[in-house]
């Protein structure tokens, strides 16, 4: 299998209030085609920034991102992102029109008829058959994220970038979507980079788990996940990886849900980036 994504020496600095913050430092990563990678780390460790750099929404301070050998520095349909927020769908379009819009605008399916037919098949894939004529505001959070995934997959990207897509959802919906995502991945064989702050989610989903540290954002270690799918907390070997990650990331054992909390009140990079965007 070839490398679909190669990141070398990626460094990203932010200038905030005349200080330079090192969000990412010398990130090196290679991803093979069809892999499901989870990226885990505490809030503010730069995992979202890493994804945004790969997607092309951030300019790199140093280093490069290569997709199948070609360097990329701006957004493109080869790296489709599913955002955390529940406002990524276009509210004036129905579920079907949202996916069809993506297809038409990227020339994946140019004609109205073709785009609608293809959109329907992707909506079916994410389990939303019958909801084609609903507007986003009529959908639940989980359904909205499913549409977002359908839209992202419909243009047949090389890499699916998921930035804590289930973070705003309740536990039940999250679990259901995790399973659906796993089955969609097995069907479509797309390469997935999945960012999460939930250790359990990281181990369940990821064939390779990348643990990151914060300040500066660095890759602590990459864990190859030997457990075979479907993975549950009862699976043999799960507890070992669980302990390893907890130790690595400096979290107290027994934290609820395995989430990582900041020990001190350090402003996260996400927060600073949001402030920067709001100020401009």
């Amino acid at each position, binding site marked *: 299998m070839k490398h679909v994504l190669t990141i070398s020496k990626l460094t990203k600095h932010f200038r905030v209030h005349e200080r330079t913050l090192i969000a990412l430092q010398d990130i090196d990563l290679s991803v093979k085609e069809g892999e499901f990678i989870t990226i885990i780390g505490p809030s503010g460790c730069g995992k979202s920034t890493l994804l945004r750099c790969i997607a092309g929404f951030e300019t790199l301070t140093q280093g490069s991102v290569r997709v199948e050998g070609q360097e990329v520095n701006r957004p493109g349909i080869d790296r489709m992102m599913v955002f955390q927020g529940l406002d*990524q*769908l276009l509210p004036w379009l129905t579920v079907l029109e949202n996916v069809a819009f993506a297809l038409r605008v990227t020339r994946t399916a140019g004609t109205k008829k073709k785009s609608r037919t293809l959109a329907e098949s992707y909506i079916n894939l994410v389990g939303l058959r019958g909801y084609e004529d609903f507007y986003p505001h009529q959908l639940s959070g989980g359904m909205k994220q499913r549409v977002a995934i359908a*839209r992202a997959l419909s243009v047949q990207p090389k890499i699916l970038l998921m930035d804590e897509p289930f973070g705003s959802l309740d536990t039940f919906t999250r679990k259901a979507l995790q399973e659906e995502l796993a089955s969609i991945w097995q069907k479509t064989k797309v390469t997935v980079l999945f960012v999460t702050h939930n250790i359990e989610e990281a181990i369940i989903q990821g064939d390779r788990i990348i643990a990151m540290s914060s300040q500066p954002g660095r890759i602590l270690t990459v864990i190859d996940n030997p457990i075979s799918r479907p993975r549950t907390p009862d699976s043999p070997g799960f507890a070992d990886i669980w302990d390893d990650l907890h130790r690595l990331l400096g979290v107290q054992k027994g934290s609820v849900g395995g989430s990582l909390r900041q020990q001190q009140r350090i402003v996260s990079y996400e927060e600073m980036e949001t402030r920067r965007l709001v100020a401009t």
Partner: protein
Amino acid sequence: METNKPTNRFRARFLGRTCRQIVFVIALAAIWELIASTGYLPPLLFPRFSHVIQALIKESLNGEVLGRTWFSLNLVAWGLSMATASAVLATALAMCWPVASECIETLMAILHPLPGIAILPIVILWLGTGRKSIATVIWFAAVWPLIANLHTGLRSVPITQIEAGRNLGLQGLHLVRTVLIPGAFPYILSGLRVAWARAWQALVASEMVFGASGGEGGLGWFIYKRRFFMEVPGVFAGMIVIVLIGLIVERVCFEQIEIRTVRRWGMTLE
């Protein structure tokens, strides 16, 4: 799965509400007629409702109402289109250059509080009496709410949506057309509504200023002439026509658009 057709439900509610409002207005008219017919108030100051309706019918039949309305609506349309074009230009500049944005904001802060009619004397000095002056006053009244709403609207589009658009390869004018403008639509509609109301008021007020319309005239001028000749029922008739037009534009035009767009999409501003 039930088809998602909001129009039927809204239509039923719209008709119900309209019927109740019509009944209320008829009740008011009846009270007016009763009070006026007692003769307690001088008919010159408070004519009977039936006389007002008579005057209205008379002026409709001789083409006055239609002619004046056409004149007024034409002028408003002219002023509003110029205001819209100016607002689009100003906002485009403001989005591209922060300097322009600051200048426009400052200009707005200074000039927005001025009612359109207040600049009429100056405008008459510069452009003389006639359509041009009134159109300028209309433009002035409408342009500031349009700029404010367009500017706010474009900035209210969630960044995530814009990035989702960029992810699909959209950029520049294509991105603006497909993501930013529809995203800003609730504000755009709100701006047009406010602009229309201010333009209509500025128009009628300007026409009432003697000589402002230079001989020809719209509904404001119609009211002015009736008052001049002490045809008080005609004055009220003119006012009714002005109110009716405002109502029609608001209920038949703007509200219907709002139902089919902003409300259907769940993008109401409240």
